[in-house]
């Protein structure tokens, strides 16, 4: 399993964010994208998970272009994208929200796996409340619980979604949660998965993270 990007270019409106960007990441790899605000980090992540189309260049998953029809069919279920968006509907309870997010996986996690994942994220009390009464941090943890649920749903060896693309996963999390999330990501990479993430906070990962710097004078 390998994700490769060849001379990617990305335009935002009239501005060129980056050009001739190449990267590749293998199983077990962890890649951190650095760069000042507005350097195109989020755009790069969205391009890497086929949710945005690059101005030029290609993104290959196991050698297949993720925007070609065949490539997309095998790539879509393999990537787990966690963007800035809350991905939570206020009228539904955390359990209902998580179950729906997991329904997109090849082996969807059933109710008790989701409940266990939510408890692991410390949302025991909020299981039955509509999400609109939860705080931003709690709602973020409901979305993050999906990482646990998708890992737990398919047992330790198999990987439902090998590629994790995480945009600022540590925002609105307290120290303990940051620690816990770092371990989850480390375990995911150790099990043969891979993760690409953007974050301004340092996190205690169990393995060295390759870095890619975008734009600006950094």
């Amino acid at each position: 399993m390998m994700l490769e990007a060849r001379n990617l270019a990305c335009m935002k409106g009239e501005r060129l964010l980056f050009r001739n960007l190449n990267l590749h990441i293998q199983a077990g790899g962890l890649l951190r994208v650095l760069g000042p605000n507005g350097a195109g980090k989020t755009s790069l992540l969205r391009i890497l998970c086929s949710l945005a189309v690059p101005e030029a260049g290609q993104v290959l998953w196991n050698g297949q272009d993720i925007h070609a029809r065949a490539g997309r069919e095998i790539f879509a279920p393999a990537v787990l994208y966690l963007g800035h968006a809350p991905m939570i509907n206020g009228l539904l309870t955390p359990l209902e929200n998580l179950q729906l997010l997991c329904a997109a996986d090849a082996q969807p996690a059933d109710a008790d796996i989701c409940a266990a994942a939510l408890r692991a994220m410390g949302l025991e009390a909020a299981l039955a409340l509509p999400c609109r009464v939860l705080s931003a941090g709690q709602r973020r943890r409901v979305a993050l619980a999906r990482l646990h649920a998708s890992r737990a749903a398919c047992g330790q060896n198999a990987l439902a979604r090998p590629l994790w693309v995480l945009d600022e996963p540590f925002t609105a999390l307290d120290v303990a949660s940051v620690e816990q999330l770092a371990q989850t990501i480390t375990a995911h990479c150790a099990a043969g998965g891979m993760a690409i993430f953007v974050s301004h906070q340092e996190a205690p990962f169990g393995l060295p993270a390759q870095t890619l710097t975008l734009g600006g004078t950094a």
Partner: protein
Amino acid sequence: MFAALLRRDLLLAWRSRADVLVSLTFFIIVACLFPFGVGSDKELLIRIGPGVLWVAALLSVLLSLNRLFAQDYADGTLEQWLLSDTPAPLWVAAKILAHWISTGLPLVLISPLLAVLYELPAEWLPTLAVSLLLGTPILALLGAVGAALTLGVRAGGVLIALLVLPLFVPVLIFGAGAVQAVADGTGATPWLLLLGAGDLAALSLAPLACAAALRLAVESG
């Protein structure tokens, strides 16, 4: 994924019953407005009844269209479904079906009640209800394509009306024509068969176009 999304959307529709009731009352209000405009002469009301009820149903479906994807687009769940292993047209069909059940079906159920308002003869009511039952899914399917095309676009609300109303005209003609055919005694079956054909055609094409349009909306960020 289909069942999960269908269940979720129906649950959402149930939890936000107010929106569903709003589009239903809109249907009732529009239907009640016409007599004030054209007078309450019995003959006239019977003549224009089916057409007015159909136009009111069409407008209330149009009104509820932007509710279809806007919420999921805003909170990012739409992106997650695009990354699922279920092909997009399938879960889009689930969303449209759930939307139709929460907005189209109530129109069908309440139409006989409104028909009384127009003093329509009793034997017209089943045809009116069946024509709405067959017609509103086409409106929902075509409307969903319009909603997906105008997702996140600035003048989206008005634009969607301009895009889909020409496409709604044949459905309106067949629907109102069915009831008219009963009135003329020529029998409504050919018109209802046309509506059925419209259902099948829309069911096979609209989810595809809608999924493509949604992918575009997400990809343009």
